C-alpha cells in the first residue's frame, strides 16, 4: 500500500480524498493555490504546499509544480479528484514517468476514451449500443434518406462545422428528410463554408443514466448499479439518485452488463463511469466514459456500502477489488443534492463570498461532503459547489422526505445558493413520481422559481 498520497485538487473532493487517506493510514499531502490558503483541506492537512496563484492554469493545472511537490515530499501516488488534471492523459503519463502512481487509468486509456469517435468505434466492436447514425460524413441527400429509413425517425441532421443550431435540423417525417437535408447543408455552406454533414437518431426526452464500474489490475470488472442524473441545467447535473426509477430489474441487468463490456473493451482499470442515454421505450445508447471519480459517487457508496475512493487507492496499489460482482448488493435508495453558490432567481449568477454562518444537517441517513465552515470565504475562481447533501433511506419516498428535512436544516448565511430550488424540486409531483428526463429542469424552472418566490414571501405576510 502507498505511504503518502498527493491530493491534486481542492474543495470537497480534496477533503473526501484526504479522509480516505487518513482512514487507510496513508499520509495525505495537499496542495493549494494562493486563493485557497484558508480552505478546509489545507486546514486539515499536516503537510500543505502552495503551488501557485489563484488561476487554475497556474496552480491546480500546473503539472510541474504538482510533480515537484510529489517528488520532494516522497509521495508514491497522486489522486487527481475530478476536473482539473483528472482526465489529462499527459499528466497520467508524466506521473508514470516520474515513478508515481496516478490513481486512475493509464494515459492511453484516458486518451482512447477522450476521443469520442474512437470510443464509439470501440463500443460498436464490443457490442455496446451507441446512438445509431452515420459513422462518418453523409455525402448526398439520397444517402442520408436511406440511412434515416434504416435507423428510423426522428433523426437529427447536423453539419460537421455547425454550432448554435445552425446547419442542424430535426426530421420527424420521412418525406421531409431530403428537403431538410438540403436546407441544412445550404445553411452550413453559407455560414461555415463547409457542406460536410452527419446524421444520427434523435433521442427525444432521454434520461441520463450512468453506471459505476470498478476494474482492478487483475482483470476483475464489476458494476455498482446505476445513477439517474437527468436533473440537469445546461448539461450541469444538479441532483442524482440511485437506483433510477426508469429501470426495470431486467433493463438494469442488461445496461449493467453493457457497462462491464464497455469497461472490458477499454481495458479499463480503476473507477470509471459509463454514461448512457435512455429513451422512453427503454432503448439505451452509450454516450461516453468518464475516466475518474464523479461528483455524484456518494449515492453509489450509500446504496452499495462501498467506499469508492478507498477502492480507487487499493486498485492503484495493485490490490484486488474488495468485492466480487455477486457480493455487491444494492440497498435502499440514495439522493444527492448539489448545493451551489449561485442565485437561481438571478439567472444562476455565481455568488462567491464570505460564509457568515453555516449549519449543516445531520442525523439518521444523512451525509454531507463539503469544504465549508463558518467564516470561510468561497473564492470566485473555481466552481460554485458549496456542499453535497446525500441521503439514504429504505425507499425512494423515504429518501425524498429525508432530503426535504435535510434541506430544511441546512442554513448558509452569506452567498445566495440554490437550496430552496432543490427543496421545491423535492415537492414537485413529476419528481416525486420519478417522471422526469433531461428536459425536466428547463420545462419546470418557471414553476419552481415561482414556488420559491411565494415561499419567501410567506413569512413576510
Amino acid at each position, binding site marked *: 500500500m502507498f505511504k503518502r498520497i498527493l491530493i491534486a485538487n481542492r474543495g470537497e473532493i480534496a477533503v473526501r480524498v484526504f479522509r480516505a487517506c487518513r482512514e487507510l493510514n496513508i499520509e495525505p499531502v*495537499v*496542495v493549494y493555490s*494562493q486563493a485557497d*490558503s*484558508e480552505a*478546509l483541506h*489545507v*486546514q*486539515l*492537512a*499536516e*503537510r*500543505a*504546499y*502552495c*503551488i*501557485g*496563484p489563484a488561476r487554475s492554469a497556474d*496552480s491546480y493545472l500546473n503539472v*510541474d*509544480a504538482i*510533480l*515537484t*511537490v510529489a517528488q*520532494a*515530499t516522497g509521495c508514491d501516488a497522486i489522486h487527481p479528484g475530478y476536473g482539473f488534471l483528472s482526465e489529462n492523459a499527459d499528466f497520467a503519463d508524466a506521473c508514470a514517468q516520474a515513478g508515481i502512481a496516478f490513481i486512475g487509468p493509464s494515459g492511453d486509456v484516458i486518451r482512447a476514451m477522450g476521443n469520442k469517435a474512437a470510443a464509439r468505434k470501440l463500443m460498436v466492436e464490443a457490442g455496446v449500443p451507441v446512438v445509431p447514425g452515420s459513422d462518418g460524413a453523409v455525402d448526398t441527400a439520397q444517402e442520408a434518406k436511406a440511412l434515416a429509413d434504416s435507423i428510423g425517425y426522428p433523426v437529427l441532421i447536423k453539419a460537421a462545422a455547425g454550432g448554435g443550431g445552425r446547419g442542424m435540423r430535426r426530421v420527424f417525417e420521412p418525406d421531409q428528410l431530403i428537403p431538410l437535408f438540403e436546407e441544412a447543408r445550404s445553411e452550413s455552406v453559407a455560414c461555415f463554408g463547409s457542406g460536410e454533414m452527419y446524421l444520427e437518431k434523435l433521442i427525444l426526452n432521454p434520461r441520463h443514466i450512468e453506471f459505476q464500474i470498478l476494474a482492478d489490475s487483475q482483470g476483475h470488472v464489476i458494476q455498482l448499479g446505476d445513477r439517474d442524473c437527468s436533473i440537469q441545467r445546461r448539461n450541469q447535473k444538479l441532483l442524482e439518485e440511485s437506483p433510477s426509477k426508469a429501470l426495470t430489474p431486467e433493463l438494469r441487468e442488461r445496461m449493467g452488463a453493457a457497462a462491464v463490456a464497455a469497461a472490458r473493451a477499454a481495458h479499463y482499470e480503476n473507477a470509471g463511469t459509463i454514461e448512457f442515454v435512455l429513451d422512453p421505450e427503454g432503448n439505451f445508447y452509450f454516450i461516453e466514459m468518464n475516466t475518474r471519480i464523479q461528483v455524484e459517487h456518494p449515492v453509489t457508496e450509500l446504496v452499495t456500502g462501498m467506499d469508492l475512493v478507498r477502492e480507487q487507492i487499493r486498485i492503484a496499489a495493485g490490490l484486488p477489488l474488495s468485492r466480487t460482482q455477486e457480493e455487491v448488493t444494492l440497498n435502499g435508495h440514495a439522493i444527492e443534492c448539489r448545493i451551489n453558490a449561485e442565485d437561481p432567481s438571478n439567472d444562476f449568477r455565481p455568488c462567491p463570498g464570505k460564509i*457568515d454562518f453555516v449549519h449543516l444537517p445531520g442525523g439518521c441517513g444523512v451525509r454531507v461532503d463539503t469544504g465549508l*465552515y*463558518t*467564516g*470561510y470565504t468561497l473564492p470566485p475562481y473555481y466552481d460554485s459547489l458549496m456542499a453535497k447533501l446525500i441521503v439514504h433511506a429504505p425507499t425512494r419516498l423515504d429518501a425524498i422526505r429525508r432530503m426535504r428535512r435535510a434541506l430544511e436544516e441546512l442554513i448558509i448565511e452569506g452567498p445566495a445558493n440554490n437550496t430552496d430550488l432543490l427543496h421545491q424540486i423535492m415537492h414537485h409531483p413529476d419528481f416525486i413520481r420519478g417522471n422526469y428526463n433531461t428536459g425536466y429542469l428547463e420545462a419546470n424552472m418557471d414553476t419552481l422559481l415561482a414556488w420559491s418566490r411565494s415561499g419567501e414571501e410567506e413569512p413576510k405576510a
Partner: protein
Amino acid sequence: MTNQEIFELMARFDQSGITTFKLNTKDFTLELGKGGSAAVPAAPVGAPAPAAAALAPAAQPDGPCITAPLVGTFYAASAPDAEPFVKVGDKVKKGQTVCLMEAMKMMNEVHAPCDCTIEAILQEDGALVSFGDPLIRYREG
C-alpha cells in the same frame, strides 16, 4: 496602570464576545479590537504539530522579501560545496542571481528585484518551499 493590569484586561477581552474596547483615563488611553476573522478550524486534535498552519500565513518578516516564483527546492548556492550566491550584508545589483529554485530537475535562477542589501536568508538550503513564500529579506539600496 501596570502591564499586569493591562494583560488582565486583554485576556478578559479576548475571551469575551466583545469586539471593540476603548478606555480613556486622565493618564492613558487603551484601545482593543478584534477583527472579523471569525474562528477558523484549529489544528487537528491529537495530531502532530500542524505544519499547515505554519505554512499558510507565514509570519510576515519585517521588510520586503524576494518570494518563491514557484514551488520547489531552495538552494542558496550553485553546488553543494560552492559559496552561496549571497550572504547577509551583501550589496547586490538588480537582476543579480540570489538563489536557485529547483522544480522538475530544472534549476531556476531567482534574481534581485532592485539594487539592495541582503538582510536575511529565510529558508534552509534544500528546503521545499511553497509558491509565494519569502526567501530572502532585503533593504533597498
